[in-house]
């Protein structure tokens, strides 16, 4: 009798554990499939990630140097001797390494996130843009290339971007990074206001 009771209670207990575990799996799945998280939660996660990057890889999280490496790798196939002579490519060596791999990583991570939540969709002209400047893809793409060129140029001029200076640098209490981040937003706010409220309303 006692043996039967024991196994009965054990079975109940295991079932309870299974239900608890199942609930936790459901909670995690619900989280992963949510369209967006609170910006505070996503941001806090990024803060933890930067700490882990310092711990495991001894470096900040930055993105713009990955593009320099991609440039150098592309240029190497066209004119390898020029790349070897280029001073900047001696400082930021064009190779497939941590700083390069973070870029395809971000693409994959955002793809997974948007697929899980059903938010993935192809767009060419974002709605905020089309509401002011119309639906012409050519105009959007030309301005995006122009903007990208200034963005990449400015990021390397300043020695980092929103993640390298704005987040990782500020986390280290770097004065240069905080000043840079302030300038990103000062320049960005002034330009966006001019673009949308002056040119856009003309």
């Amino acid at each position, binding site marked *: 009798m006692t043996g039967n009771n024991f196994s009965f209670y054990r079975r109940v207990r295991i079932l309870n554990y299974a239900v608890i575990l199942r609930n936790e799996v459901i909670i995690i799945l619900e989280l992963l499939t949510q369209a967006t998280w609170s910006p505070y939660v996503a941001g806090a996660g990024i803060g933890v990630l930067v700490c882990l990057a310092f711990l495991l890889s001894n470096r900040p999280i930055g993105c713009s140097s990955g593009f320099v490496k991609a440039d150098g790798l592309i240029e190497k196939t066209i004119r390898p001797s020029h790349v070897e002579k280029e001073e900047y490519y001696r400082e930021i060596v064009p190779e497939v*390494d941590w700083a390069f791999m973070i870029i395809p990583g971000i693409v994959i*991570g955002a793809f997974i996130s948007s697929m899980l939540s059903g938010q993935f969709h192809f767009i060419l002209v*974002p709605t905020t843009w089309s509401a002011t400047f119309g639906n012409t893809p050519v105009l959007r793409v030309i301005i995006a290339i122009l903007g990208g060129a200034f*963005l990449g140029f400015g990021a390397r*001029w300043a020695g980092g971007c929103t993640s390298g200076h704005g987040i990782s640098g500020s986390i280290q209490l770097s004065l240069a990074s905080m000043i840079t981040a302030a300038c990103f937003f000062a320049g960005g*706010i002034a330009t966006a206001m001019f673009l949308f409220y002056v040119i856009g309303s003309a």
Partner: protein
Amino acid sequence: MGALFSGLHKDKGLQIILGLLFGVVFGFLLQKGGVTSYNVIIAQLLLTDFTVMKVMLSAVIVGMIGLALLKHFGYVQPHPASGTIGSNVIGGLIFGFGFALLGYCPGTVAGAVGAGALDALIGGVVGILVGTAIFAELYPVIKNRLLIKGPLPAITVQELLRLNIWLTIIIMEAAMIGFLLLLEYVGY
């Protein structure tokens, strides 16, 4: 502990994999935070939505205390770089100009590509590759003429304020948390 990780730091093959993994988690969090969207970034620059600020400040609030503790217990030795007006202010403003035209930054542009934004791929990524390539070409010319001009008075905030690191962190954390609370209070 330090020795354990210094071996990991030197392992080039593992670091390549780690770079990819850090990217995957970073991209996932950027997308979940909503900041891989052109609309969200432009709304931030037009000051009608503060999602970008909320994500960035939350990251700094958590990371600043986390990194200081890791450093205190000897697990990491971060070396923040010194800066100049010529590099950081001018470069930052050029970046800002491009930031508003493109509507993504170098990290979020990759995230936007992952979420299906074709303007980020054929516009943003191409443009950034062109811009950074032009910079690489010009670097020897501007390095000593512009980038080193006007050195900043200190490397870190605590050096500038001549304060103890923990006191500086408490002040910075209070200011950032206060700013976020203010944003919520006024309804953003």
